[in-house]
């Protein structure tokens, strides 16, 4: 499976955010998008997730499962916000996303406990999500990537609010996903600690 972006450009309102971005990722490859604030990292990810329309160019999927030609439905998107409800317990949150998202063809998600163990927080999944600290909440949001299988991970500042050890733990999760033939695109402005990845530097426009 290959994920191709061809001459992408995007606008927000009247402003051109970026233009002519192309890349080609095969299974097992990662792309780290770097750049200063406002250079369009998040916008690029939202275009890839299908949440924003591209102004020109297109995103394609080659050799993926039949019936999927946009990566949207095969992607996990981890935005700035965690998409978890404070009032529900971590367990209820994860079960909801597991059942709501379902597995993409070609793989299956981890169990709840496995996923929580993978982020090192297996013993607090019975607590309400709102009780957790910011870093723990972020880690649980990563557990959400594990409970339902998606070949493509779109991660927007995934390690915000994480300490160094959690950073390492997260790099391990990404490495495991890549080993299994997944694709990871991460926008960040700090070193993520995984090696052997493509990188894309966005400069942004200055009007």
């Amino acid at each position, binding site marked *: 499976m290959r994920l191709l972006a061809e001459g992408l450009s995007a606008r927000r309102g009247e402003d051109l955010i970026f233009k002519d971005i192309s890349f080609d990722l095969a299974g097992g490859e990662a792309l780290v998008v770097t750049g200063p604030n406002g250079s369009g990292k998040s916008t690029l990810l939202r275009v890839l997730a299908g949440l924003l329309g591209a102004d020109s160019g297109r995103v394609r999927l080659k050799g993926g499962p039949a019936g999927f030609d946009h990566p949207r439905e095969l992607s996990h998107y981890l935005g700035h916000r965690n998409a978890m409800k404070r009032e529900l317990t971590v367990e209820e949150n994860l079960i909801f996303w597991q059942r709501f998202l379902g597995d993409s063809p070609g793989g299956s998600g981890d169990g709840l406990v496995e996923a929580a163990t993978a982020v*090192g927080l297996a013993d607090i999944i019975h*607590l309400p999500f709102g009780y957790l600290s910011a870093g*723990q909440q972020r*880690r649980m949001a990563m557990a959400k990537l594990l409970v339902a299988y998606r070949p493509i991970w779109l991660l927007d500042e995934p390690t915000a609010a994480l300490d160094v050890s959690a950073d390492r733990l997260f790099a391990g999760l990404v490495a495991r996903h890549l080993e299994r033939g997944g694709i990871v695109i991460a926008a960040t402005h700090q070193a993520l600690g995984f090696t052997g990845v493509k990188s894309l530097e966005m400069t942004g426009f200055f009007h």
Partner: protein
Amino acid sequence: MSENSLAIRKFSDLANPTRFLALAARALPWLAALTALFFAAGLWLSFTTEGDYQQGETVRIMYVHVPSAWLSMMCYTVMAISALGTLVWRHPLADVSAKAAAPIGACFTFLALVTGSLWGKPMWGTWWVWDARLTSVFVLFLMYLGLIALNRAMDDPSRSARVSAVLVLVGFVNIPIIKFSVDWWNTLHQPASVIRLDGPTIDPEFLRPLIVMAIAFTLLFFTLHIGAMRNEIWRRRVASLRRQAARNAGREQLAP
């Protein structure tokens, strides 16, 4: 009432929730037993005394209705005192007491309304009239429900305690005004058809079971209130233990 003074002495004695828990554990069985005893006596009296020649058997509703109506007001007074305790003396148990009393008060008020309604149907031929007294009780019921909703809406107990204490006190100050305005509104509009409750002075025949039932209800209130306070303290401890667990979790595994 002796039970009342017992409760008050305990309240003033209490310095911390742990002492309260110990005292509550000791007092609750006795209170519960006493409540059951008075209820047994009260119910027996209620059903053995003669019915009213005018109202027949339905007069027995009074033995439940009147005590619950009294308690609906007493409970609000307890809440107002607790609110004062929260705001003025910063007593750690005061907000627990106010929070625990609200649902109990709502229940007694609801009971008063329902029994009043059941009594009203044969007496007045309708389930509800906008009589001044009934209306005031209904407004009180709405106030209770509003306070419960407020308590539920905020998850941080220490913050919600102050806010709801303010509301309780404003409500308490407002009760006479509400009562007065409802009376005024009612005499302005009241059609003459409604039979007023305050007839001739009550007969001692009815008074005896009524007093026993009133004591039983008061005891019931304190049993429930102390039990609910204990539950609330436990609930808060569980919540703080869980927060503690959340803070500790994941530290050991991740320590380099």
